[in-house]
């Protein structure tokens, strides 16, 4: 046999016992060619294009799943940022398009469709502004549409006027949905990648071709198990074994992504090598860090451990595929990762330490429940803090906060399914109001003098 029993079993074990899966296949679709000044024709064009390709995506992904025995958990679609395609339409066009995207996704059996958003890092057009204002209504009246905003970048700085709006908008979204769950479908970014396959922030960027098939692999369980097998080795050796594992799972992801794109006759885009946790036992990024020797994530040493982990994953991934892209970091969502959640519950992990962790990993303050009475300006300030880490360091950072109505720090919230459950985090009581309300634009950072 060309392969040893150990090699075959390594692959089989990853899928059977360590939750190795393709977290998402996300087809990016350009909707610019659907634009029409007659909104009914426009909607019909969007519906036809999204359902046709959505159905094909679900069908072809099912066949590949069978062929390789690797589950493909989510089949998703991202589209051209909606604010761009409704520029010439009437006031209520963004909502009309959101509703048709929602219906198309449901009819094609696509669980989430991303791209309801705008790139406003330097300023807002009239269309951007009305789209932002429509977010509370959109997120409370649709089921599957995800929203994003890019409000900062390393070359443009940070749009503080947009960030002021977001504090109130997040509270409004939260107040209209059970447990504030509408906020889980909205991510705000700095340096948002145009080919990210993960929700809520996926959109089909303006530099992309007509279609692009992007794939997000996931293997916290696989990485955790190799760390578990290497309890005694030093950190140099540990980095090496993580690197090798990342190489293997990225190769599998690339194979599946390329074949799926080829079967659909669309260009293959990127493999996103992010470690993305789930609430399944063992499938936790916190679990990897704790297996490395940190008692609870959040304890001193956590930032260094996470830095080593993501560096090794990137090195292995970059060797395995020339198409690594998207976010490609390590996700540390709180509610979606049982280990992170436990760290919050036990007091090991504060929002300030989470912010520090995001300086070395992707992708930001993710799925964090905060008290419902947090002032809007404080929410804006948390967003500004997190995004400035991305802007200054030339990396992507994002924020997905849920100000849960009626809940205070320490309360338990259950969002259901993959979104998970969590405890409301404590937020500083000191005010940032006067700073935030100054507004304006934070200038782009100097890129020399890197200390």
């Amino acid at each position: 046999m060309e392969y040893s029993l150990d090699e075959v079993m390594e692959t089989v074990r990853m899928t059977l016992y360590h939750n190795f899966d393709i977290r998402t296949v996300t087809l990016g679709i350009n909707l610019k060619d659907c634009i029409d000044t007659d909104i009914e024709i426009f909607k019909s064009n969007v519906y036809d294009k999204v359902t046709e390709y959505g159905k094909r995506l679900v069908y072809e992904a099912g066949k590949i799943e069978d062929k390789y025995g690797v589950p493909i958990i989510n089949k998703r679609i991202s589209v051209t940022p909606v604010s761009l395609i409704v520029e010439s339409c009437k006031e209520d066009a963004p909502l009309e398009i959101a509703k048709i995207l929602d219906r198309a996704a449901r009819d094609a059996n696509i669980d989430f469709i991303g791209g309801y958003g705008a790139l406003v890092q330097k300023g807002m057009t009239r269309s951007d502004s009305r789209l932002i204002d429509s977010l509370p209504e959109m997120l409370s009246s649709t089921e599957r549409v995800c929203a994003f905003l890019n409000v900062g970048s390393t070359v443009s700085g940070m749009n503080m006027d947009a960030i002021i709006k977001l504090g109130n908008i997040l509270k409004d979204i939260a107040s209209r949905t059970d447990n504030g769950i509408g906020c889980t479908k909205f991510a705000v970014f700095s340096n948002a990648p145009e080919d990210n396959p993960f929700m809520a922030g996926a959109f089909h960027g303006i530099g992309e071709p007509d279609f692009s098939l992007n794939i997000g692999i996931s293997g916290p369980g696989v990485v955790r198990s190799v760390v578990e097998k290497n309890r005694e080795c030093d950190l140099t050796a540990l980095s090496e074994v993580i690197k090798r594992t990342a190489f293997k799972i990225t190769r599998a992801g690339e194979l599946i992504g390329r074949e799926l794109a080829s079967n659909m006759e669309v260009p293959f885009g990127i493999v996103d090598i992010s470690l993305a946790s789930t609430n399944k036992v063992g499938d936790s990024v916190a679990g990897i860090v704790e297996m490395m020797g940190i008692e609870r994530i959040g304890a001193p040493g956590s930032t260094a451990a996470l830095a080593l982990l993501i560096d090794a994953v990137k090195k292995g991934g970059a060797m395995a595929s020339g198409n690594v892209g998207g976010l490609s970091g390590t996700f540390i969502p709180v509610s979606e990762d049982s280990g992170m959640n436990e760290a919050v519950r036990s007091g090991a992990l504060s929002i300030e330490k989470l912010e520090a962790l995001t300086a070395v990993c992707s992708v930001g303050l993710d799925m964090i429940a905060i008290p419902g009475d947090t002032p809007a300006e404080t929410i804006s300030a948390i967003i500004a803090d997190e995004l400035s880490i991305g802007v200054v360091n030339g990396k992507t950072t994002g924020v997905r906060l849920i100000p849960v109505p009626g809940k205070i720090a320490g309360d338990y919230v259950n969002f259901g399914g993959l979104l998970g459950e969590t405890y409301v985090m404590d937020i500083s009581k000191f005010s940032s109001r006067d700073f935030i309300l100054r507004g304006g634009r934070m200038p782009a950072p100097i890129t020399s003098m890197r200390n």
Partner: protein
Amino acid sequence: MPKDLVFITVIGKDQKGIIARISNAVFKHNINIEDLNQKVMDGYFVMTMLADMADSRASIGDIKKEFAEIEKQMDLKIQVQHENIFKAMHRV
């Protein structure tokens, strides 16, 4: 005709008839066994069978349905995966 190779992996408690049942199912679908390997690993019976599906009309999905029954009756885990994934992961 080029080969269309799949790995059929069986994990479970050692018992009579495992290889017989699997081989029978494979034969029924006109699938050729190219190689077979078995041993006890960590207290479990482990078998990997490399099989060529080029002459078969069945899809991997069909074979999996067939194996689902054996899995249930004999309390085994049976995985069917196309060879390409092993090549991608273990060969540069």
